[in-house]
């Protein structure tokens, strides 16, 4: 039997984005808020991130992932917000109907507004096409983190980590502390991809070698990983013949990027930005489908959970307003931001004229002493000096509504 539930705001995903969005929707007047989580507990990936460094921006404290999550879980319980665990949204329609399966059966949830907060998933070996046999012992870094920090399972004795993203760096330290020998961290780019703090405290502290401009060209071993072959790459990131080197190991961890998880968004007809691989949203974080909002890593992969929380609060606020029919009807068309020199992506992609908007950008290439310019109808409204830019760190800017009220064009560039 199909159980029907009607709600004001349905939030899909119980990680940091979903928690903050649900809390904010409730606090901003939505009476019936329902959070739907696929896993068996709230908190999402924060549960397995037992290292510290979360909350520095929002709480001025260096919390661990579980601590950060529990603050929001407690708030959710205090506000008596309904949530479903072990519940999978199988379908989302443009008219905001959610079909959900769990052990109690099949549910139809009719929502006035929906917040997408499904997060992201890791790129796998298949996505980067490493040659070689198919032995056991190849994990994505986040999966290894789940095994070690939540399930008390050990993954190997000697490991090579491909990719220097933050999860890879964190796992290098975590495994070292648990007695695993990290032979190398291998990064295809000429610069490390994670935060510098993590390069220092996770690699340098433990004398773990970092091979920049190198990649894994082959995984060796039949039943179990026995070694990897690495090689130096040229400026086109192609392996240079003759530079190969074999590193023995029984485990390979991949930290090679995250992909926003947008199957449900696509199903609902939400327009996706090929650069962020997340929905195209406006200043209210509303997607191309009216009443469907997005926040957190499903929208764009974030550097810091603090930013996710801030963004999710906004999504929750606007979703509540939409559900209550209080969303102001814009009197002018949205303005799509055009991307100039060294700007790979912008979120939100569309500005609602007259509305204050917090913007996040990513660059293509690293550089020193650059300027972020936001140009409205030919006038440089924001000129922000950036001592250092890198693709792994988002740039932020707040664009005041007064500058966009009568604007036609908004352009962004990062240049000298």
């Amino acid at each position, binding site marked *: 039997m199909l159980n029907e539930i009607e709600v004001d705001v349905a939030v899909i995903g119980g990680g940091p984005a979903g928690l903050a969005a649900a809390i904010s929707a409730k606090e901003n007047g939505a009476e019936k808020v329902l959070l739907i989580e696929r896993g068996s507990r709230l908190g999402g990936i924060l549960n397995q991130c037992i*290292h*510290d460094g979360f909350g520095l921006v929002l709480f001025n404290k*260096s919390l661990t992932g579980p601590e950060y999550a529990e603050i929001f879980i407690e708030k959710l319980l205090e506000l008596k917000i309904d949530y479903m665990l072990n519940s999978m949204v199988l379908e989302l329609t443009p008219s905001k109907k959610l079909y959900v399966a769990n052990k109690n059966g099949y549910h139809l949830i009719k929502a006035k507004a929906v917040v997408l907060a499904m997060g992201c998933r890791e790129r796998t070996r298949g996505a980067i096409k490493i040659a070689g046999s198919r032995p056991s012992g190849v994990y994505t870094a986040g999966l290894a983190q789940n095994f070690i920090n*939540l399930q*008390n399972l050990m993954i190997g004795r000697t490991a090579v980590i491909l990719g220097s993203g933050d999860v890879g760096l964190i796992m290098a330290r975590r495994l070292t502390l648990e007695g695993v020998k990290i032979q190398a961290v291998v990064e295809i780019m000429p610069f490390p991809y994670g935060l510098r703090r993590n390069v220092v*405290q996770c690699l340098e502290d433990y004398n773990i070698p970092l091979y920049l401009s190198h990649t894994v060209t082959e995984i060796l071993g039949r039943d179990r990983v026995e070694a990897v072959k690495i090689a130096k790459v040229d400026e086109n990131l192609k392996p240079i013949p003759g530079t190969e080197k074999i590193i023995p190991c029984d485990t390979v961890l991949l930290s090679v990027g995250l992909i926003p998880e947008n199957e449900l968004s696509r199903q609902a007809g939400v327009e996706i930005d090929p650069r962020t691989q997340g929905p195209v949203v406006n200043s209210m974080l509303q997607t191309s489908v009216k009443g469907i909002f997005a926040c957190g890593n499903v929208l764009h992969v974030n550097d810091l959970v603090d930013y996710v929380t801030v963004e999710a609060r906004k999504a929750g606020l606007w979703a509540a307003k939409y559900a209550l029919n209080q969303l102001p009807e814009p009197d002018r068309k949205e303005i799509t931001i055009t991307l100039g020199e060294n700007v790979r992506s912008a979120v939100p992609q569309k500005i609602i004229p007259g509305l204050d908007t917090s913007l996040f950008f990513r660059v293509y290439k690293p550089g020193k002493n650059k300027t972020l310019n936001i140009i409205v109808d030919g006038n440089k409204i924001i000129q922000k000096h950036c001592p*250092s830019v890198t693709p792994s760190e988002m740039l932020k800017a707040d664009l005041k509504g007064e500058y966009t009220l009568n604007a036609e064009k908004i352009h962004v560039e990062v240049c000298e």
Partner: protein
Amino acid sequence: MNKKLVCILCPQGCPISVDYTENELGTVNVISVEGAKCARGEFWAREEVENPVRTVTSSIRVVNGDLPLLSVRTDKPIPKKRIFDVMNIIKNLQVNAPVKRGEIIVENILDLGANLIATRTVKRVNGEE
């Protein structure tokens, strides 16, 4: 002696050069810090050479919990060179559920002036052991 550091405090990432002496007891004395564009960076570099400290995070076994592991951390940073000593203590710890976030698991661990605290709540589930 000299140590080259890249500051981790802000995206600017100043290259910092620290001159120091070290006596036979391992006591380090900083003579000069150069390259930091701010006072915080200079202070960080001095500390990083004289007495580098880190927060240790890990997990311990928990009995009758709704999870097999309890995540823990030191509530203050401890000297970097004692990280593995602390890990050796952590390795052999075991607690019974329930545990509340913030609960002290080991007071003043190894006399380092930091407590080892629980960083999550683990509920008790019925079970025998």
